[in-house]
């Protein structure tokens, strides 16, 4: 089985080679669930309205076909392509699910979302007809939440001039608020930070921290290539220690690997590695390759961090265990003291077990990364 990217198959590979195989096209949209396909249509519809600009035009052209051309969509959402929304939907659903799983596993109190409670109560009372509307309402609420989250993510890649044009059409902006549930002005211009890289870095890097390490972001801009990125970032965010790499100035892959490894070796809190890329100068393949190198180095670093912490905690645990044993031997304390120690021991053990679980998660994630890379 040979897996290649669609673009390569169409544009790079020789037809005689392709003719030797039976070919199947697998896109992200093909792996969507049925309920997600409906959501995808809604997303497409609104993306078309968003990029169409003129509210009259999308009305006349019709909802299904939309009115926006590919050029308009690409001008509206940076990096738009035919499978763009499918990837958004898949990633957002996965992110929401993992967030709800982690919150349900970590929380001891009943702080889960209302929808989960509703679903559970409905499931517990299967025979009851009255539960059906509750389930439907919970599902609807879940869909609305997913749609809003998708749009929040999508707006992160929207260009401000297009957002302003939508805002200028009060009717369209109001319809967007009604159907998607987001106040466009509030989300784009108040909650999200699009004005400049330093402003974005000042707030979002910490907010987007993942794996307990830090944020991993691709920031696109139409701004001309600037050489003073480090100065700009440190002027606005003095807490940052910026390492700046310009991709098209590197001669070899080894240079990038070296710089990335050096960064992660000495990285401390507040360190930022900025890899500046000019797709015209480097090409998209090189860009993807650099992204892969960064991913690998970061995953390695995350794993190393967890292992180090685990070792530290094992040492601490051993030390506390020996202390407890010594205390037991002395056996001078009251039974209450023993209880307290036992509780501490249990807590410590639970913590260690949790860390082991997180290592396993990370390992599985790392393997998942490798598998995904192969698929791509």
């Amino acid at each position, binding site marked *: 089985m040979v897996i290649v990217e669609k673009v390569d198959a169409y544009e790079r590979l020789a037809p005689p080679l392709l003719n030797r195989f039976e070919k199947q096209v697998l896109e992200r949209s093909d792996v969507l669930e049925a309920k997600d396909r409906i959501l995808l249509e809604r997303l497409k519809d609104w993306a078309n309205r968003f990029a169409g600009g003129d509210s009259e035009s999308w009305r006349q052209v019709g909802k299904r076909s939309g009115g926006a051309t590919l050029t308009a969509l690409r001008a509206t959402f940076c*990096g738009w392509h035919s499978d763009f929304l499918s990837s*958004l939907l898949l990633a957002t659903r996965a992110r929401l699910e993992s967030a709800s799983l982690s919150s349900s596993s970590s929380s001891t109190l009943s702080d889960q979302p209302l929808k989960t409670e509703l679903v559970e109560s409905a499931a517990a009372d299967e025979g009851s007809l009255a539960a059906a509307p509750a389930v439907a309402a919970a599902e609807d609420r879940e869909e609305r939440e997913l749609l809003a989250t998708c749009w929040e993510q999508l707006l992160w890649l929207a*260009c401000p001039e297009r957002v*302003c044009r939508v805002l200028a059409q009060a009717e369209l902006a109001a319809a967007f608020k009604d159907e998607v549930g987001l106040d466009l002005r509030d989300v784009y211009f108040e909650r999200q930070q699009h004005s400049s890289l330093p402003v974005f870095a000042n707030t979002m890097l910490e907010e987007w921290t993942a794996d307990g390490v*830090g944020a991993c972001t691709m920031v696109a*801009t*139409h701004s001309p290539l600037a050489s003073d990125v480090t100065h700009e970032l440190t002027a606005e965010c003095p807490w940052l220690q910026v390492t700046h790499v310009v991709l098209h100035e590197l001669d070899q892959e080894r240079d990038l690997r070296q710089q990335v490894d050096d960064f*992660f070796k000495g990285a401390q809190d*507040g360190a930022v590695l900025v890899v500046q890329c000019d797709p015209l100068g480097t090409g998209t393949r090189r860009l993807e390759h650099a992204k892969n190198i960064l991913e690998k180095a970061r995953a390695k670093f995350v794993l190393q961090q967890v292992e180090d912490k685990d070792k530290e905690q094992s040492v601490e645990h051993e030390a506390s265990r020996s202390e407890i044993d010594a205390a037991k031997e002395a056996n001078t304390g009251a039974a209450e003291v023993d209880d307290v120690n036992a509780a501490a021991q249990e807590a410590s053990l639970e913590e260690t077990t949790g860390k082991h679980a997180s290592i396993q998660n990370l390992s599985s994630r790392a393997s998942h990364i490798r598998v995904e890379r192969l698929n791509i």
Partner: protein
Amino acid sequence: MFVFFFYLDALTTQAEDVEEAVSTTTSANSQQTRRGIHVVMLLHLPRGATNKWCASYDLRWRLAFVDGVHAANNIGLPPVQDMIGKSMSEVVAELEMKKVLTASFRSALAMLQYPSERNNLQVREQIAHLLSLMDQPFFVDFLTELVSEMIQKSKSNALDEASGTRDDESALVRSGTFQGALHGRVIGAVSSTLAIALSHGDRNHMLRLLAEESLQDLWKRLFLESFRQMQVFETASAKKNTRQRSGQLKMGEMVSVVSDGYQGSPFSAEFPFSFFLDRHFSSMRSLSEGTSEEALDKQFAVLNLGLDGHLEDETLLERYTRDLCCMHFKAVDGMPPDIQATLLLRLLEVHGRERPQTLAALHFRLWSAEQEAHILFALLSAVPQAHTPVVDLLQSPSIVEMNTGERLLAVLAAVTAALDPDANFGDEWENSRAGYLGVSVLSRVPIEVVYPASA
């Protein structure tokens, strides 16, 4: 663990200082708590079809679009979110005007069209002067108020962020960013209004007078009065609209700087907005010419410009006389403007038997001495050799006792004496010819001037 103590004395410390100290500590604390090791891939994408980048969402990377790499507050302009849904005047009201004016005054200067060609040195001096003025809060405040007022009145300087880039897609390409395009509009509005203000302020090169601290208040007061009374902004806007409608506004917006010198010739004024005062006095001439200096002064006082009556600073009167001389009379060849102004002042003094003390007195006497001064300066222009003898003649005490005819004859005698062939002419035929021209000028003088009916 570190503990940071602030010792505050309630008697000597202001409440604002305490709040600031607390806020500084809080922000420093928040900066300290920043955590994380971050990776950012910054993609500088081209606009349009050349952009081939395709984004795909996954669980590892977060995707974002930022408008620019540089923070907006470095140049005194607001970020995009602070401009959305606001009018241009609202945005301008929140600008750091010192930074914005410093950034935009060069483009404003480039819009000015002076009546005479200026060399690089003059332009450099003007820029240096304006830069030094930008460091003075009074000037920045003054311009801020003026520019804000003009932008508020203006209809063409709308900040329509939605259609701003639709009309002119090239603005986005030029600026690179949407924020840059909006900033370009703001800077454009400030520059164009600033150009109008500078065109009025630098009329007759009056901007350099702001370097003198004693003149600053008078300059500002007369600027505002003249700017509003003469409707400078409205006139400039109307001209611009007319040119826009007729399609002539292709080569950029230009604002003419007027010169009020004799027959439009350029001159450097010594008194702030002397042309404005001269216009007012000219408008009063038909009513006041036959009355008295006091009546004219009272009429001038109605304007409430604060320049009626005796001027505290006597040098102001001399400065004003110099400007009057430049505005009403042709420059005498080979004679410095200051000497010419001194001659005029002496002539006006002779006409009133005493030195004029008010601006009204200056104008009142000028009306009666205007023709005589024209003849005098024409003669001096024609016969440069006669400058010294004529100046000496007019400075002599005996001249006060003469009437107009006698004075002109005495001047003519001095001129003809300077034209004496035995005098040191040499073979300079041109000089002789100029002398004859001077006599011919005098020969064209109406007899009534030389021998008034009263004489």
